[in-house]
Structures are given as structure tokens and as C-alpha cells.
């Protein structure tokens, strides 16, 4: 069915199609539309689910954990301060090996109060053991949310998945949306360690160093095992529904001398910039990172790299730029842009590429530029 929807509505529609048994959520701008829409689905009978309107995000994730450990599919959505307020339980969900799916609408952190797009919120959860994926269109938000359930619940993964979409730029943008019937694309959930009073066990009991260490390694092993599972989900999705996705969305990179690396809506903006640069005779390409955890391989050898970070790690640098240094030995021109929803146009990105200084860092709009 072809409709027009916002990013938020697309996520909610995908959740309806995935049929979770329990949704626990708390409102926060700019995510609220997702949970309002799900509440409406549940209230009208379009979704046969328990909707738990919790009193905080910490409780949202705790309620999802309590439901998930009984072996049922769960979902929540949050943003920014909400995500950070649930931080303790975000860790708990991953350590407890619960395939919870959460949409996070990326938003800056206060003070001062700022409700606009930034990736720093999700990056503060990057070491928790959650898989993280960032989307750039309404259709991709829908498709990726469906994939998230299949991937999280796969027996080789059993880790939670966070689907990230940029606040307002995507959450509130209307674009065409083609909904699908998921059918067997998401198999019934089977949690091997679900609670069963007929077979009592202790969950999360006091654990000594040796066993704890082994459990942490097991999380990392599953994170690595998620790579073929994600690939398989992409392939199956393309076969069943005709739309292809990868770990990266590569655009005109084959012969590119300079590659722009970005995430979310900035990654789409960069594709327009690449077309303009190509018209000027600059052989540019773009790699939009979709899966941030597990972190993908980017083929950057022999190319200039312009990394755009809508985030910052104070005292260290742009997280994407530093990640590329660490994993690909790249020397990117690190542009910090778009914090707190700062407007960044494709013309601006053209400027970043034209004026690139490999190895240096630039704060767009603060440092002299363009």
C-alpha cells in the first residue's frame, strides 16, 4: 500500500506489522508521534498488544525487559534525554540478551534545551551491546524497523537493536511510503532463556569475574555473528520486497578520489553534493554509514575522506572521524556540523569537499569556512 507518511508514522506502521506483544513507552519530542500512533493502533484494535504508558524512560526499558524475558516481542521508542535516562536499563537489556527493538529519534542534549537533530544521544549508548542502525528516508525507517526485529531475535544474535532517525529532519518529514505484509520475513520469536516456572533459574544473579568475563565475550561474539545475520536480512528483504540495503549506502564511490562519510539525513544530503561536485569535475562519492554497531568496513584506501560528524566527543573529536582513523587508518578532514539541528545544506557539503584539509578538524560555522 503506497501512502505518504512521516518518519515517525513509518516506524509505527512497521511496528504494527511486526506485531510485538508489549510496548512500553514514555513521550518525548520529537519521538512522541511514534508512541501516539501505536497507542491509537492498540486502542482501535488494529494491534493486539499491551501498551504500557510508563512514568519514565527508565521504566519503559525496565518494562520491556520484564516482558521480553517471558519470551515475547517488545518495542519502545525514545529520544535524547529519554535515552540517557534509560541508560542503565539499555545496558541491562543487552547484558540480559533480550532482543528488544527501540526507535531512537536523534536529538541534542541540554542544556540549553534543544529539540533538534544530533547523534550524540545514541553515541552515548554505543558501548552498551546494542546494534545501532541509522536511516535516512521514511521508507528506510519503515524497512529497517522490520529488519530490526528479525535481526535482534535471530538465535545467533539475541541482542537488542536501536533504529535511529534524525529528529524533525526525518521524524517529521513527509515522504512516500510503501507498506508491506511482513509475512514470514519476521519468524515467530523464540527466546531460549525465557523464564519458565516449570524450570526455575536465577537470572542476573551475582556473577564472579571469570563467568562475567565469559558472558561479555559471548556478547561480542554475538555482535560479530550479527554481521552475516544482517546481510541475510538485507538479502531476504530485497528478494521479498524489492528494496536493497547494505551496511553502507555507497553512492558514486567506484572511481571516487574523495569520499564524504556521514550518517542519517546528512548522508542523503551528501549525495546531492556529490552530484554537484561531479558536475564541477571533482570525482566525489559518498558513503552513508547505516550500521554503526557492528561497525562496518569502509574502502577508503587511496582516497581523501571528508567525515561529517553530527556529534562530538569532547576532548577527543568527531566520533565518525575518529572511528575511521582507528578502523581504516584514514586521515579524514573532520567536519563537525549540524549539532543541535544546525542547518547544513548540500552546498555546504560541496564547500567541505572543495576546501578539505586532510587531518584537520573544522567546526562548521565557527571556524572560518566556505
Amino acid at each position, binding site marked *: 500500500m503506497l501512502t505518504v507518511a512521516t518518519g515517525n508514522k513509518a516506524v509505527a506502521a512497521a511496528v504494527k506489522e511486526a506485531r510485538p*506483544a508489549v510496548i512500553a513507552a514514555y513521550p518525548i519530542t520529537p519521538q512522541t508521534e511514534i508512541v501516539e500512533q501505536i497507542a491509537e493502533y492498540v486502542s482501535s484494535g488494529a494491534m493486539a498488544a499491551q501498551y504500557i504508558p510508563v512514568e519514565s524512560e527508565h521504566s519503559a526499558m525496565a*518494562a520491556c525487559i*520484564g516482558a521480553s524475558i517471558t519470551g515475547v516481542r517488545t518495542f519502545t521508542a525514545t529520544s535524547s534525554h529519554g535515552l540517557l535516562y534509560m541508560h542503565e536499563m539499555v545496558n541491562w537489556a543487552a547484558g540480559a540478551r533480550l532482543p528488544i527493538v527501540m526507535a531512537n529519534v536523534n536529538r541534542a542534549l541540554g542544556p540549553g534545551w534543544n529539540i533538534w537533530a544530533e547523534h550524540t544521544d545514541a553515541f552515548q549508548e554505543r558501548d552498551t551491546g546494542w546494534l545501532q542502525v541509522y536511516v535516512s528516508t521514511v521508507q528506510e525507517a519503515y524497512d529497517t524497523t522490520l529488519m530490526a526485529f528479525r535481526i535482534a531475535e535471530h538465535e545467533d544474535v539475541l541482542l537488542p537493536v536501536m533504529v535511529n532517525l534524525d529528529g524533525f529532519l526525518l521524524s517529521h518529514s513527509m515522504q512516500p511510503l510503501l507498506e508491506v505484509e511482513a509475512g514470514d520475513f519476521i519468524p515467530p520469536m523464540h527466546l531460549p532463556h525465557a523464564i519458565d*516456572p516449570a524450570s526455575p533459574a*536465577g537470572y542476573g544473579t551475582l*556473577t564472579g569475574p571469570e563467568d562475567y568475563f565469559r558472558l561479555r565475550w559471548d556478547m561480542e561474539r554475538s555482535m560479530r555473528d550479527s554481521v552475516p545475520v544482517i546481510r541475510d536480512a538485507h538479502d531476504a528483504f530485497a528478494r521479498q520486497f524489492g528494496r536493497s540495503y547494505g551496511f553502507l549506502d555507497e553512492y558514486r564511490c567506484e572511481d571516487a578520489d574523495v569520499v564524504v562519510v556521514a550518517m542519517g539525513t546528512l548522508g542523503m544530503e551528501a549525495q546531492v553534493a556529490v552530484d554537484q561536485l561531479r558536475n564541477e569535475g571533482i570525482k566525489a562519492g559518498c558513503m552513508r554509514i547505516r550500521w554503526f554497531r557492528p561497525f562496518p568496513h569502509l574502502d577508503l584506501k587511496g582516497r581523501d575522506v571528508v567525515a561529517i560528524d553530527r556529534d562530538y566527543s569532547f576532548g577527543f573529536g568527531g566520533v565518525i572521524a575518529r572511528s575511521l582513523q582507528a578502523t581504516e587508518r584514514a586521515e579524514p578532514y573532520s567536519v563537525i556540523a549540524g549539532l543541535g539541528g544546525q542547518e547544513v545544506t548540500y552546498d555546504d557539503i560541496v564547500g567541505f569537499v572543495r576546501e578539505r584539509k586532510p587531518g584537520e578538524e573544522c567546526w562548521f560555522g565557527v571556524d572560518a569556512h566556505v
Partner: protein
Amino acid sequence: MTQIPSEEFILKCTSACAGCSDSLTLRYVLKAAGPDTVLVVPACCTSVIQGIFPHTAVNVPVYNVAFAAAAACASGMSAALRAAGKKTSVIVYAGDGGTVDIGIQALSGAFERRADFLYICYDNEAYGNTGMQRSGSTPIGARTTTTPAGKLQARKDLDAIVAAHDPPYQASACAAFPQDLFKKVKKALSIRGPTFIHVLAPCPPGWRYPSGKSVEMGRLAVRSGMWILYEREFGKVTINGPSRAAIMKPIPLEEYLAPQGRFRGISQEAVAALRAQADRTAKKLQAEEKGIC
């Protein structure tokens, strides 16, 4: 006499301190609840005494969860179980710190949402697991490791906070009165919706009395009127037998305070404040029982 089953769900070899009321309370709670039960346990002494992975001394599933998260976790669990048509009892078993302090928001939220589970707060009036720091439940005058000269403030009235949520069933109990505790757990689990039992749990290392005297200490708490056994069922209050007698003719408060090292050197003002708070609570409950409130 209520027949208490001989089946044990707390196995031997817990790592509880000698004379621990927590494990004694849990023993009767689980005898009343039976095998189709899941315990949700936030950080508290019970996190530790159930044993070290991969062993457990509790013979029902125990879901251990973060300090502030127990009531929310239980509300999600019971929603999922009820939606699947299962009658499994979900019981939060939390200490006073995890209830009156860090866990109160989740408790309040879950009770307002009418989540279907039993919340048991076993109250040793301090953070026992971390070595006896003051909690919101510590009585005035009690020495803890963070109130070395005695606590200056009165304890928080947890029962009044819970009562404000109008749960269908609420009670207080003490492991020194196992029949009473057993019956209250049975009754709470027979009622759908959020139910609550506040259990006084005398603590030998925390209260500083010999470990053989936990039951005696619980009895003294009730006889002195410092702990009142009552239940509030669909709004109707009943003060239970032992407390009915104690309110009429309490033993001197000093008989309860003197054996406890934590009250050594307590000021006369603090003793008077303890007495006054206990009397106020008794009067309120009596008035409610008579329907004057």
C-alpha cells in the same frame, strides 16, 4: 491454624547472615505463593543471598534487575504473562532502599497503572547490603554508617504513600509472625491488581543485637507499637490481633530500643519522637478501622 506447606523454595546454603529476617520472610512468602511464581528482585540483600552464578538457592525463577527498576520490570512481566493467558504470580521482593528511596517512582507508576503483581518491601530500615547506610525508612535516632550520631529525621511513611494509590490490598507483616505473613501473601495473590505488603525485617548486624534474637526483636517491635500489623482490603482497615492488644497496652518503648546497638545513646527527644510517630500511626489506623477518617 493455617496449614503452612512443608515444601521449601529457599534451599539450604544461602549466603544470608545468621538470624537474617530477609531469608526467613522469603521462605514463608514462597510457601504461600507456590511454584508458579516469578520473583523480581532489585539490588538488595536478596540479590546476594540467593547464591552466585551458576548456582541459586531459590527454587522459583528469580529475575534480578537494576535498583530503581523492580516495579516497572514486574509490570511489563505481568502484562506479558497475562496477555499470554498465564496466571503465574509476579512478586517484587525489594528492600527498603529499593522501595522508599530509589524505587519509589517505578512503584508509584506501576500502582497508578493498576499493574497486576504483588510488591513486598522487606524493611530492615537501612541499606543492609552495602553495610548499613541510612535510608528513608531509617527511624529517627538510629545510628547507621552514614548517621553515626543517630538519624535526625523521622522515617518516611511508606504505607501512607502506597495507600494514596488506593491499591485493592495492602498489609504490613513481620517474619516473627509467620502465620499472619503467610495468610497475607495468599490473600494478596488472590486479588488482581497491584497489591502491597510491608514486612518488618529485623537485622542482627544492622540493628546490632545477637543473631539469635530476630524473632524476639520482631515481637518487641509489634508489642511496643513501633510496628503495627494491619491490612487494608478494598479500603477497609483491619488491625490484626497482636497489634490490637499492643495498641491498647504497649510495652515500654525502651524494651524494644535497649537491646539494639543502633539506638545506644539515643536522646530523650528522639525517643519521644519515635513514640509520637507510632501513636499517630496507631490513631490513624484505628480511626480508619472505625470508619472515621
